[in-house]
């Protein structure tokens, strides 16, 4: 049970008053600085978890009941999951954090006191964990938290204690409320950033207005990630930044004729250039993130020989990152972004020249999504013998366009039905994505072999190791290609087609989220 004290009441005094009813023991209060951690995209919060560190210990709490899930001693704060000491906490956090770095969200001072209620045998029957939270180096208490913990086998004492505390001025709180309160002091709102789109559009909204809402949201994502790319905290800041650019390009290319043609063309050009600037950096990130799985693919006898490749890639990444940072800090970039921002903030023209500008967005959305879907069916339905790399690559791009369109316009359609379609599309995309990634990585490795600054005997051994890796990647490419047909058949099933028709063609399925 989690409680907080009503305004103006003294929590300590109230707990002290419990001594009128029971034998109450107060342990020595402990003051410590506590820091809260999460990733930039709130991965722990999204899983209802709270990670905090105090005095060389990291403690993971559940935010739903405030129970301790895992704890571990650390010498220094691990940035990434793989830097945690081996154990339960690491194995629980690794799949949640993946490649994201933990950031310190806030730090506060905690004055923590344990009280114990004893029975006649002087046995502890209820534990009270009382915490006063203040800003670091300040006296004033920001909030008070009391966690009442029952001791197994003594439920009556627990119930009576909670009743008494509530009568004397404590109120029940949700631990999440306290989390929000503490972070509010550092101007942070849990869950405020997500790489997922969270747009709320109205079906009858003008298309140019709705499109600008989407684009403004994407610009916010770009800006949110910019500084962290420069700090190089983890690879996903760049990834989210690039996805925002790609989505912007797809908005400009797919939501057609909502802005004047020359304006659209000009910004499409700007974003194409901006997208290309970080292509190599992202390729390097992908390769380096896969260092361990790649090493496992190489026969054990050659595993050490592949190290020069990763040393080279790491070195190269530093240089490529510097170039990209310079581009981000350049006057041209600032100017391009400012122009884009000015355009997005311009008031809507009363009588716009673009033909689709005033068309209701739901109408345009249905048209565009249906168009993309039929294109995919056409491309994908060609006989499987022609499932060549080029066609699969084209299909991947088509799918990406469709996926983004459905995500932009998610709020305009019945949630459950569009979610189902996105899920089906996602499994097709995963297959095509795997295929494409494998092709790119193979090509990238082949290209890199020529650039490696090594020679002689070592060069031969490293080339051999890279060759065997490319061989394994080739096998995986064929597996991905082999499963395409089955996945595509599911995607193009009559049920799925019917649902696309219902949502995006038939008048009955008109926007009713």
């Amino acid at each position, binding site marked *: 049970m989690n409680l907080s004290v009503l305004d103006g009441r003294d929590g300590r005094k109230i707990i002290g008053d419990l001594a009128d009813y029971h034998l109450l023991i107060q342990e020595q209060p402990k003051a410590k600085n506590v820091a809260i951690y999460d990733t930039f995209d709130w991965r722990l919060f999204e899983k209802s978890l709270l990670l905090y560190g105090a005095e060389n210990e990291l403690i993971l709490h559940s935010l739903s009941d405030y129970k301790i899930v895992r704890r571990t001693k650390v010498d220094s704060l691990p940035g990434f999951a793989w830097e945690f000491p081996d154990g339960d906490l690491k194995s629980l956090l690794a799949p949640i954090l993946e490649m994201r770095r933990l950031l310190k969200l806030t730090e506060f001072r905690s004055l923590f006191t344990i009280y*114990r209620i004893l029975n006649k045998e002087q046995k*502890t029957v209820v534990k009270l964990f009382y915490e006063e939270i203040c800003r670091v180096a300040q006296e004033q208490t920001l909030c008070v938290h009391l966690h009442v913990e029952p001791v197994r*086998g003594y439920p009556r004492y627990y119930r009576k204690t909670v009743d008494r505390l509530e009568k004397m001025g404590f109120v029940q709180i949700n631990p999440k409320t306290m989390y929000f309160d503490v972070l509010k002091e550092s101007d942070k709102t849990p869950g405020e950033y997500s790489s997922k789109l969270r747009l709320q559009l109205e079906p009858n909204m003008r298309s140019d207005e709705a499109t600008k809402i989407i684009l403004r949201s994407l610009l916010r994502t770009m800006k949110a990630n910019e500084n962290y790319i420069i700090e190089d905290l983890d690879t996903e800041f760049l990834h989210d930044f690039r996805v925002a650019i790609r989505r912007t390009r797809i908005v400009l290319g797919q939501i057609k004729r909502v802005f004047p043609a020359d304006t659209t063309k000009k910004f499409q050009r700007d974003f194409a250039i901006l997208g290309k600037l970080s292509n190599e950096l992202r390729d390097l990130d992908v390769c380096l993130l896969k260092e361990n799985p790649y090493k496992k693919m190489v026969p054990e006898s050659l595993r050490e020989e592949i190290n020069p490749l990763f040393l080279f890639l790491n070195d190269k990444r530093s240089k490529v990152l510097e170039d990209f940072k310079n581009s981000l800090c350049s006057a041209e970039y600032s100017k391009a972004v400012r122009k884009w921002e000015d355009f997005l903030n311009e008031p809507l023209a009363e009588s716009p020249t673009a033909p689709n500008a005033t068309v209701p967005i739901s109408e345009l959305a249905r048209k565009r999504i249906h168009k993309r879907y039929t294109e995919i069916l056409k491309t994908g339905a060609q006989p499987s013998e022609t499932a060549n790399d080029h066609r699969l690559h084209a299909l991947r791009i088509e799918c990406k366009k469709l996926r983004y369109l459905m995500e932009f316009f998610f709020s305009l359609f019945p949630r459950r039905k569009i979610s189902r379609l996105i899920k089906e599309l996602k499994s097709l995309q995963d297959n095509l994505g795997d295929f494409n990634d494998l092709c790119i990585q193979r090509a990238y490795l082949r290209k890199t072999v020529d650039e490696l600054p090594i020679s002689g005997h070592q060069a031969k051994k490293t080339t051999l190791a890279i060759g065997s890796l490319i061989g394994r990647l080739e096998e995986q490419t064929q597996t991905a290609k082999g499963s395409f047909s089955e996945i595509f058949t599911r995607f193009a099933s009559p049920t799925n087609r019917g649902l696309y028709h219902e949502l995006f063609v038939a008048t009955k399925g008109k926007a009713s989220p």
Partner: protein
Amino acid sequence: MNILGIYSNKGGVGKTTAAVNLSFLAAEAGLKTLVCDLDPQSAASFYFRVKPKLKRNAMGFRKGGKNIARSIKGTDYENLDILPADFTHRNLASTFNKLKRRKRRLNRILDPLRPEYNLIVLDCPPSISLLAENIFNVADYLLVPVIPTTLSVRSHLQLLTFLKKKNYAKDNIFAFFSLVDRRKKMHKELMATISREFKGILHNSIPSLSNIERMGIEREPVQAFAPTSVAAKSYRKLWQEVDETLLD
């Protein structure tokens, strides 16, 4: 998950103090631990300040299930629970004797608790009865305190003979010396002889110390009221050896 029976067919050898202190150390090391007090004298329950009372007494214990789960009490220490004894435990052997599969009744009672705990420590009463056979069947390991005196060694020998006669495996029987007085020449000599002649004798022993006797006054494990004492250190060493040698 392990069930560790602290057993001896002789009384007053330090079973309960070992059960209480070893389970405290296991819990402190992060193992979710349950002490199961099977002795009607209920000394382990007394040390943890828990009333020796079970829901529906021996009948409830015999049936297991919810009655057992409801009888478990949290101790004052993190990760450490106790299933208290009940005075009706004095009749446990005869209660089991009336039932089917009488030698495996404890398995039926304790097996459902295995998923919840990493370690269950049994504080056993001193007898070689049907209850003892239940203990031999349910425990993954038996830990026997042996005082380095002739009578205590004779009892240990009796136990080993009994186990052999009844075809119980002897590989999971371990012993440690308890209530050792190093000033006594006889203790030292007997310890040397026994360590040489018996298998499964642990290296670490528990001396005879006033702090261990004080547990009855403090009603706490010795680690809790005298963590730096020789007694506490001895149990810590014994726990480390038990953890490394016996437990999975």
